[in-house]
């Protein structure tokens, strides 16, 4: 499968990338790792006439601590995030979830900025970022702005990012030793989640239970009100609208949401957080 023809622009800086976006508008798409965009282009579900390659902007590739936040550059690859000692210590949920994306070859290419901008409701890292109350830092022609993750994912593959903006950073609070859990149900390990649940610090986010990743607010409110994990997790499907497809029907997804939320909350509260797959190479 071969993408439709396009013009290729290799950006040497954020400013050059933004200039190209300003010039070509809706016709242009940013290319970082390409592991969300190129499959869509090969299927001709996306047909941009200009690709602006930001994959070589190494200034945007970093994981560092800044005050009480961990800052992750947009072109940081999933493999870099899963093996980053800063992320493993200061944002262990995010490091773990980065290591659950796809497979090693995919994680060597895919970037955190790309996966967030893609806005797929069945995506691992956006689920973790939502549970972490992350902030998306976008840069456009008039400067930078911060967008809360809770206000970033608007609909099916739709985000708050404007056509002339690009993501430059993700910021998450340093969670250090705070318990966390991530439970993902797939048929094959390198698949997208049929449903996934991320839990940290009393917050819960779900993948693939709606047109976007979303917070399980009923669960969070029940927990805040003193409910047990089991009682709270029973509310995980409230406010969701899961689709039915070849992998699972809506009712099964609602069941998975309750089950995976309970397991994620139990992992978070037990202090036994960590890769459920033992011996994963790090």
């Amino acid at each position: 499968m071969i993408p439709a023809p396009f013009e290729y622009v290799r950006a040497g800086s954020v400013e050059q990338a933004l200039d190209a976006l300003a010039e070509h508008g809706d016709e242009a798409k940013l290319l970082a790792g390409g592991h969300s965009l190129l499959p869509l282009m090969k299927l001709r579900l996306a047909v941009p006439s200009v690709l602006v390659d930001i994959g070589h902007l190494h200034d945007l590739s970093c994981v560092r601590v800044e005050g009480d936040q961990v800052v992750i550059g947009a072109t940081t690859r999933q493999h870099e995030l899963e093996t980053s000692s800063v992320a493993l210590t200061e944002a262990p949920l995010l490091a773990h979830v980065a290591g659950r994306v796809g497979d090693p070859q995919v994680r060597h290419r895919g970037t955190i900025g790309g996966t967030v901008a893609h806005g797929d409701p069945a995506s691992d890292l956006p689920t973790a970022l939502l549970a972490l109350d992350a902030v998306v830092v976008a840069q456009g022609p008039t400067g930078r702005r911060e967008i809360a993750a809770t206000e970033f994912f608007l609909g099916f593959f739709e985000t708050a990012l404007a056509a002339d903006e690009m993501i430059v950073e993700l910021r998450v609070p340093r969670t250090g030793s705070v318990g966390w859990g991530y439970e993902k149900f797939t048929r094959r390990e390198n698949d997208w989640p049929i449903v996934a649940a991320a839990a940290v610090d009393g917050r819960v986010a779900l993948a693939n239970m709606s047109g976007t990743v979303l917070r399980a607010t009923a669960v969070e409110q029940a927990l805040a009100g003193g409910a047990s994990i089991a009682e709270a997790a029973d509310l995980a499907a409230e406010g969701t609208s899961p689709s039915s497809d070849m992998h699972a029907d809506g009712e099964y997804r609602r069941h998975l949401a309750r089950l995976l939320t309970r397991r994620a909350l139990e992992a978070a509260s037990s202090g036994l957080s960590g890769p459920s797959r033992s011996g994963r190479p790090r």
Partner: protein
Amino acid sequence: MQISMIVNGQTRTDDVEPRLLLAHYLREVCGLRATNIGCDTTSCGACTVIVDGLTVKSCTVLAVQAQDSRVTTMEGLSAPDSELHPVPAAFRAEHGLQCGFCTPGMVMAAIGLLADNPDPTDREVREGLEGNLCRCTGYHNIVRAVRTAAQAGPAASAVPGPTR
């Protein structure tokens, strides 16, 4: 547009369409046919090659994205008249293949795995090769081959090239 990269130790410059995939570039422009295209959807791993020391699925990388990179395919592991690289040698010794279609991708992924984890357990091999599918389901001998290759030490994860 013009691109330049090092493929199996040789610097190449070619004029390509931006939409040319790295897998097609390697097979059709460079004539390196070991790299197979299986699913063409980033799932099966048959097209795995090593770019700048990391395994990638070349069906989901544009050739233009590999500009200035060092790319290694299965052909680049050892010269035709020299000893086999320890990983393909172990695949041969342990019969780590049935039809052989997935083998080049498995071999390249195994080299990447051994670079991260020089002495993996069976389970770690299976997890490390999660991005590679064998439609013959010949996984047992593939796992055995990777563990045998690990006994060769650092040579098993070595990728020949001018920078080493």
